[in-house]
């Protein structure tokens, strides 16, 4: 079923489809929206009933609700969307976080707000991914910058969703989703299976050393199973009036992710120790990547995961440099948490190159900004 090891020339969105299949996705519910539609189209071809279920729903609220249900039914489930579709999903993202449901949501970001630029790239949803639903919660989010990473990080998104029982996101954008290039599919792909309750495998206890993540009681396997978005105890008893139960639950939902930052976070480092470091992610990081590879005065920290915030690599980069340039395709979003960490690390100057309008910053635009900063 999964794509054979080897080399392929694929679109980013097609590589995401292959990554999902490789990670064992068995259920997709979607609603077509540019620039994510190729993911739904691809999975419609792959999940044909025998190998899994593809549903086109009436809207994006139905999509995310359906995948939450499918996940509780015991299968790996995902949806893919963009812009307004992602906004519609926000309430249920909180429900998935509260009910600790592993799901994967791919958001191929386009220019907003509202209908905005359907065919153009942006990184305007990075904060919405973490803060879009009400209440305190944590999620996991990856930011691919190539066709290969559309595959690799989709597999990771599934693995971490299962490992931590949490909504997990692939924050791509129109440029990365639509670009075509080489995908190398390896022989071995690490796939994390669901940590079901009561499987009683001898190695069960070693699956997740972090005991904040409870094993999953799956429908139809003899467990008393209750799912709720209301405040509940570890035994799924509803206790919305109990101060301590709520404190414990909400803190655990956050802690299980935050304490595992080192396990989850991924990044690429070019020329660490350079006097000027660029910190960027996704397609916005590609112009900086060319500069960092060719100019030894400039380094790059490219974040491959955005949530939980990769505090340690940002701190380390900031500690060793004189100034930082954050590049992103919004008016400044990740800039603020990065600036907070950089200041804590003693870096005094943190600048922003912000580009909206639908195109990643070009190498010449980045060089222009670096010249302004006296870095080159």
């Amino acid at each position, binding site marked *: 079923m999964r794509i054979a090891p080897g080399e392929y*020339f694929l679109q980013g969105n097609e590589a995401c489809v292959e990554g999902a299949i490789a990670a064992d996705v068995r259920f997709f519910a979607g609603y077509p929206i540019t620039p994510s539609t190729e993911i739904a189209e691809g999975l419609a071809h792959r999940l044909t009933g025998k190998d899994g279920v593809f549903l086109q729903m009436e809207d994006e609220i139905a999509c995310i609700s359906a995948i939450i249900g499918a996940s509780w039914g015991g299968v790996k489930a995902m949806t893919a969307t963009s812009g307004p579709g992602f906004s519609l999903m926000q309430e249920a993202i909180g429900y998935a976080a509260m009910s600790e449901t592993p799901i994967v949501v791919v958001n191929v970001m386009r220019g907003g707000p509202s209908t905005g630029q359907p065919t153009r790239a942006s990184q305007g949803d990075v904060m919405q991914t973490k803060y879009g639903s009400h209440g305190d919660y944590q999620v996991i989010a990856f930011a691919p910058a190539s066709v290969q990473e559309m595959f690799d990080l989709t597999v990771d998104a599934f693995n971490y969703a299962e490992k931590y029982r949490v909504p997990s996101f692939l924050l791509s954008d129109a440029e990365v989703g639509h670009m075509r290039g080489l995908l190398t599919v390896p022989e071995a792909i690490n796939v994390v299976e669901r940590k079901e309750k009561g499987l009683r495998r001898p190695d069960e206890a070693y699956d997740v050393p972090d005991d904040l993540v409870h094993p999953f009681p799956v429908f139809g396997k003899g467990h008393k199973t209750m799912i709720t978005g209301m405040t509940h105890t570890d035994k799924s008893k509803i206790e919305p009036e109990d101060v301590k139960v709520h404190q414990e639950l909400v803190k655990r939902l956050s802690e299980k992710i935050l304490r595992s930052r080192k396990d989850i976070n991924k990044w690429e480092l070019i020329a660490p120790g350079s006097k000027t470091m660029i910190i960027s992610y996704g397609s916005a990081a590609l112009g900086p*990547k*060319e500069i960092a590879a060719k100019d030894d005065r400039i380094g790059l920290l490219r974040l491959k995961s955005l949530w939980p915030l990769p505090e340690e690599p940002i701190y380390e980069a900031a500690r060793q440099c004189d100034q930082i340039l954050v590049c992103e395709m919004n008016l400044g979003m990740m800039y603020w948490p990065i600036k907070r960490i950089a200041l804590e690390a003693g870096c005094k100057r943190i600048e922003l190159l912000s580009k909206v309008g639908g195109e990643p910053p070009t190498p010449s635009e980045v060089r222009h900004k670096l010249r302004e900063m006296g870095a080159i």
Partner: protein
Amino acid sequence: MASMDRQVRFSGFGGQGVILMGIILARAASLYDRPLGEDGKVRRKSAIQTQSYGPSARGGHSKCDVKISDQEMLYPFVEIPDYLVVMSQQAYVKYIHERKPDTKIIIDPDLVLDKPKGDIYRVAATRAAEGIGTRIVANVVMLGAFREISDIVPYEAIEQALFDTVPKATHDLNRTALTLGSKLGREALEGRGKD
């Protein structure tokens, strides 16, 4: 060895298959072009195809970029093309200014009304495609001409990538279109600067 990037832009109107031209070129460079280096080792190329299109699929402008690098791809987007292929007047007006003095410009003279100066190659791809029965393969004729003029990838690599990309029942037609394009490309090389 210093890395060498080649930047190519195909442009025209929606429905001509402009984006397919870029897909075939980038696929050829990614999968089928394995030149031997001076040390006798096979060299890899990396190629990325990107595109831009308006919200309307047909009739609007269409642009497809391909960047090919001898080494790992860093910035995959085309800034100023080394080769600009133009298959409509609208695309000509939109993209002709994004060029360097030595950018090679390949135009279909039946579709582009302007007579630009510079390093110009005229390839009447649409008329030639009609001559072999259907203008639907004008893009493949133009791709064959582009390959001949640019010599960025070997003919065999383009042909293999073409067959990977188009339906099997059309392989003969597409092969005819590609070889016809190669011939027109050679003629354009020879006739360059003569008018």
